[in-house]
């Protein structure tokens, strides 16, 4: 009985439409912002610098739809794991997935946001205690690795959540 309730809750969370906020991850908001300020550059004027910019070619072999599906599964899997943790803790923390964005709300301890970044096939993480990071999928280890220091996304979440919640949390693939 309890188990079926839990599943219902997860399903409800997954399908619940979320009121869209004006603040969205960059890839979306770049489109919604109307360029008025002189500070805006045309993307075309940057094309000459393309080789200097962060490379996106590495993961371009995955199609965008494959990436979306794969990263969504990752985020949903994280949500299920976190849901289970938060339920056992009976805390005021909650986790929500909507339109490619996973929000982990830890009440007064802050908020994590993980979002899909389809143009460069990455998952971006924003943490209340460490620098924002970007993750690319590594098929050899079947995990998402930080582009800065190659640390696994699951390891970072395990470590940071355990210390924030003062409770041993284990997030795994």
């Amino acid at each position, binding site marked *: 009985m309890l188990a079926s309730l839990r599943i219902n809750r997860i399903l409800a969370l997954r399908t619940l439409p979320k*009121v*869209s*906020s*004006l*603040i*969205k*991850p*960059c*890839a979306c*908001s*770049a*489109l919604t*912002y109307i360029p*008025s*300020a*002189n*500070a*805006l*550059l*045309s*993307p075309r004027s*940057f*094309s000459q*610098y*393309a080789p*200097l*910019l*962060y490379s*996106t070619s590495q993961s371009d072999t995955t199609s965008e739809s494959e990436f979306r599906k794969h990263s969504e599964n990752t985020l949903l899997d994280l949500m299920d794991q976190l849901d289970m943790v938060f339920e056992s803790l009976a805390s005021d923390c909650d986790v929500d997935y909507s339109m490619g*964005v996973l*929000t982990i709300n830890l009440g007064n301890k*802050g*908020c*994590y*946001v993980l*979002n899909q*970044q389809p*143009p*460069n096939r990455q998952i*971006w993480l*924003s*943490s*209340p205690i460490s*620098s*924002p990071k*970007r993750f690319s999928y590594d098929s050899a280890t079947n995990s998402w690795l930080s582009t800065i220091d190659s640390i696994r996304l699951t390891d970072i979440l395990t470590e940071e959540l355990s210390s924030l919640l003062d409770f041993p949390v284990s997030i795994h693939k």
Partner: protein
Amino acid sequence: MLALSQTSKANYHPKVHDHYEKPRNVGLMDKNDPNVGTGLVGAPACGDVMRLQIKVDDNGTIIDAKFKTFGCGSAIASSSYASELIKGLGIDEAKNIKNTAIAKELCLPPVKLHCSMLAEDAIKSAIEDYKRKKLLAL
């Protein structure tokens, strides 16, 4: 109904609006000037690209900064604030500016912390470019 309208109005902080509407230090410097360092970061595909340039005097102090950014309001505000922040600092001080300082000043929400990170990267990249030029000139 009230709750609905409140959740749908997650607006940017007034400081972000201020920098977005009146960006400081917008412009371009001569990238071939030996005292100018140019940092270009971001990915056009993702929507955000920043170009930050610094002019450094013989004592290693940043005497001027100019930027241009293609991106969202937070990205423009972050680079505008960063350009203000680094003016007058030594390059080693400027190198230590953390994204959290920018995010805190602009009260960026969690999902926008990446913009402040991009501004930190832009500062570092401009300083590296300046140092590289100085090494080549020796």
